């Protein structure tokens, strides 16, 4: 083969390779609707089934755990809800620097003593004037026993009060405190623990924690000379042998005098005060989980009306996705280790506590994860109320112990897997 022939051959090969590769990348279509007439296929029909898939359901109360709610509900709502709040200031500032000098003096007299309570304006309720009373609830007795602390809200322990209209409050409330009583604690290096309550019907939502610390503060001028800038004391407490989270939790906490009634048999409760959470465990047929594609999954809960407090307010029910294996059997522990539903793309659903009827909760994204979960992970879902511990609304549903037709059900629409590659 001559040189010219070889050159021609190489050129030809190059042209050929280029043509093939360019052709391979050339693909286009413009089209409309010739299908399905010309695209016969083995179409499998969607199947729809509604069934009682719950194998275990339960309601657990006393949520949120102490210290885990950033707000604190202070309510006086006759016949339904009555709560009180306790704020601990165990480390009062007892010295100051006169005239901003380098020497410090002990505080012997104070002026303008205030308890400042940050408020969440969305939680206030009441158009009539109410009085917030602040009491000295320090005790040497069992100060973590709520009954003991609750008994200290006595007139002889009154530190101060303020009257206001809840609906007209701003983003904080200042409660004047007795300078005499507070300075006595300063001079004695004693603890200041303040319990607050509303003496007449109304409701406030106090911001209890911000940025990992207690939000309420006590302020006072370190001298009767009012030219001094007020000192600010944040919440703090000391509990022997307690962990940091326990210590933080007791800096600001609530006491419930009257709250939700215990759920009757056959009822699942979400919300209330203290709040309840409900847990449901499902068992899906293997024909759905193993050999089908789930295209719709809805949890059908039959709601019965609640008359507890905000029965006509719309509230959100928040899904929780349990993540533990069956090695964990304690339901409270399972709920503590649950993930927010948003991580599994299960959204919140809004409901009115006073309504009744079948409520539909879309659990499609969660149900589609079930087939791929290890068998040791129970297919489950739990619910909590939004603003848990800061709003008193509750939702009530019939449980699996209720009469047939009222029990929780799953409505699943699925497409059985088929071998459709054969024409």
């Amino acid at each position, binding site marked *: 083969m001559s040189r010219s022939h070889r050159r021609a051959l190489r050129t030809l090969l190059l042209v050929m390779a280029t043509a*093939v590769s360019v*052709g*391979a990348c050339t693909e286009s*279509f413009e089209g409309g609707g*010739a*299908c399905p007439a*010309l695209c016969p296929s083995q179409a499998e029909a969607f199947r729809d089934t509604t069934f009682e898939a719950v194998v275990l359901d339960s309601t657990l109360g006393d949520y949120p755990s102490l210290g885990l709610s950033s707000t604190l509900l202070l309510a006086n709502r006759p016949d339904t809800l009555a709560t009180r709040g306790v704020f601990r200031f165990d480390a009062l500032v007892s010295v100051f620097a006169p005239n901003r000098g380098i020497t410090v003096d002990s505080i012997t007299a104070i002026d303008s003593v205030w308890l400042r309570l940050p408020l969440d304006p969305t939680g206030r309720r009441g158009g009539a004037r109410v009085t917030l009373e602040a009491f000295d609830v320090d005790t040497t007795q069992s100060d973590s026993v709520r009954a003991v602390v609750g008994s200290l809200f006595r007139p002889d322990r009154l530190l101060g009060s303020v009257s206001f209209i809840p609906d007209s409050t701003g983003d904080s409330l200042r409660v004047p405190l007795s300078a005499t009583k507070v300075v006595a604690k300063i001079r004695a290096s004693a603890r200041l623990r303040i319990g607050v309550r509303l003496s007449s019907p109304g409701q406030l939502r106090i911001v209890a924690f911000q940025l990992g610390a207690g939000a309420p503060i006590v302020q006072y001028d370190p001298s009767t000379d009012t030219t001094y800038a007020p000192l600010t004391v944040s919440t703090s407490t000391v509990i022997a042998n307690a962990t940091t989270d326990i210590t933080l939790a007791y800096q600001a906490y609530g006491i419930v005098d009257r709250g939700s009634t215990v759920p009757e048999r056959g009822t699942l409760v979400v919300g209330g005060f203290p709040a309840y959470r409900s847990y449901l465990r499902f068992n899906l047929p293997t024909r759905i989980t193993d050999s089908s594609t789930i*295209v719709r999954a809805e949890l059908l809960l039959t709601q019965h009306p609640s008359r507890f407090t905000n029965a006509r307010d719309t509230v959100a029910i928040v899904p929780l996705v349990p993540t533990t294996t069956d090695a964990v059997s304690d339901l409270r522990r399972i709920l503590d280790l649950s993930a927010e539903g948003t991580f599994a793309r299960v959204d919140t659903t809004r409901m009115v506590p006073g309504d009744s009827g079948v409520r539909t909760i879309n659990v499609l994204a969660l149900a589609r994860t079930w087939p791929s979960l290890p068998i040791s992970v129970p297919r489950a879902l739990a619910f909590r109320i939004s603003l848990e511990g800061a709003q008193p609304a509750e939702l009530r549903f019939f449980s699996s112990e209720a009469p047939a037709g009222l029990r929780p059900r799953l409505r699943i629409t699925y497409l059985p897997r088929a071998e459709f590659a054969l*024409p």
Partner: protein
Amino acid sequence: MIRRTTRAMGALLFFAVVPLPAASAQGTISMLGFGYPVGSGSTRVNGTAGAFAEFDALTPSNPASLGGVMRTVIGVQAEPELRTLTFGGVSERNTLQRVPLLMLVLPAGRGVAIGLSGTSFLDRSYSTITTGNVLIDGNTVTTNDVTDVRGAIGDLRAAAGWRVNTRLRLGVAGHLFTGEHIVARERTFADSLQFGTVLDSSRVTFFGTALSLGGEVAIGKGLAAMASFRKGNGLDSRIRDTVRTAANVPDRFGAGLRYDGIAGSVFAVSMEQVGWSKMSGLGSDQFTSNDAMNYRAGAEVSGPRLRGSALLIRAGFARNDLPFGIVMQRVRETRLSAGIGLPIARDDASLDLSIQRANRTLVGGTAKEAAWLLGIGIQVRP
């Protein structure tokens, strides 16, 4: 030089065997059933609408055509198709790419040659996008379906041809039919909050064998008759190594007449009968297949000389039955073809180009499909 040529051919084969994007279509009448019978003709044969298939050494139809080949031949070709479907006032266009034939012919002496080839037997690659409704829990829900089909059944053939004497050539070949279909289906709902997307796929593989015999005899001055017969054995579909359906590779009988008594010219007519109905049991209940009778006529004449070699000009006509239809409706195809053959590097290589215009109709239906099939093939004789 041989090493360089081998390297070059390797590069070419690389491009040739790289998986190519398949057609995107919105419906098709040529890809029904198990797909389109590509025909596996060389570009030269395609230039004559298939009329030369019975005696072209690079076309794996008649193994006798290998007899007497004296030089090693490597052939590869590409065949893009530009297709327009008209149905119910809707016109849809798409482009697809094929590499339908790889061929290696090795002379073994004494008039015997061995041929190894890989061809597309049936090509089923397309995508469809449809909008429809499904009834769920008594409610009509709008859906959008995307079906993506990628598949083909290939014909791997090992053949031997023997030129017994100047008047007779014989051949025998064994065929291995293998391939797979992968179908992916995605169904999305207009209400994507309530309904999740369905993404499903299915894969089926095929395996079958066949044996073919062929012969060619000179029956007069410049006139020769050829015939070949492929006897299909079992052909089964398998899903995860389990035989799902079983049928047979279609029997094929082809015959043709060639006249090359005029210097520089070749004329041929041929017919082909393919027993596609033997594949009926391979598909689902909705699948139908029909036997096909195909008729072809074509010619090749010497044209003007280019760089000292004569340019070959080809033309042909064919009327083909396509094997797969819809509910007993058959698809018929006519083809007009033209092509050129360009010797390059003297006898060391040649380039063939072809163009075919195919018109396909669904008998008894309103769907029509027109396609331009372009062919570019190269033969290297190192």
